[in-house]
């Protein structure tokens, strides 16, 4: 029951942060596909950073609850795969296959690079 509470609390904050971030970034006219890349890259970086920090404090009493809240709840809900793929779907409908390919390659690469950067920042 406590585990459900931590995941739920994290997801409430994560999903609403994503929504607010999305609205704010859209006003900056970054381009529709770019907004979701920024959010997903940021979440991947935070996950890498969090996992490396939590590894160092694995003996900490509340590390499991922190993982449930931050990693599964908050960051899992802050980042989204469905919106990213929806952008690709939109581009495919408009027959912009090259742009879809560019968006997918840059999203995946930035996600992995930012995760690695966050992870290696502490684990050096």
């Amino acid at each position: 029951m406590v585990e459900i509470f931590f995941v739920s609390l994290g997801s409430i904050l994560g999903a609403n942060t994503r929504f607010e971030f999305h609205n704010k970034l859209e006003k900056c006219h970054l381009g529709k596909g770019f907004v979701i890349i920024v959010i997903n890259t940021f979440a991947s970086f935070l996950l890498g950073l969090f996992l490396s920090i939590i590894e160092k404090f694995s003996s900490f009493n509340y590390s499991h609850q922190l993982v449930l809240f931050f990693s599964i709840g908050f960051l899992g809900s802050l980042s989204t795969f469905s919106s990213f793929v929806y952008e690709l779907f939109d581009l495919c409908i408009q027959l912009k296959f090259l742009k879809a390919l560019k968006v997918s390659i840059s999203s995946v690469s930035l996600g992995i690079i930012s995760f690695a950067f966050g992870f290696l920042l502490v684990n050096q």
Partner: protein
Amino acid sequence: MAIDIRKNKFILISLGAIPGALLRWQIDEIFIVNLIGCFVLGFINSLDISKRYKLILGVGLSGSITTFSGWSFYSYKLLSQGLYRLFLFTSISMILIGVFAIYLGHMFGKKLNL
């Protein structure tokens, strides 16, 4: 001062985000949860429903059941283990099947609208 739940975006998004994150946590298979979420998003976006349901099911449920950060972690693990072919195969297939899942969701939604 009473809060009108039907208009409060924070509550509407949370209503979808909680079951989404709990399902993702319980299923614990990135490939499956991402595809379910893509189908749901395609389905919801093609339905003629009010913005409030789109916030609950689109932004909340579909956004929270899928995860990109978890996928980045999974991809990083594959690359750090030297499993480059598996990484390429899973990345390409997840994106292609994801787009197809959204297309299927759209088709189902459009049929229901008729």
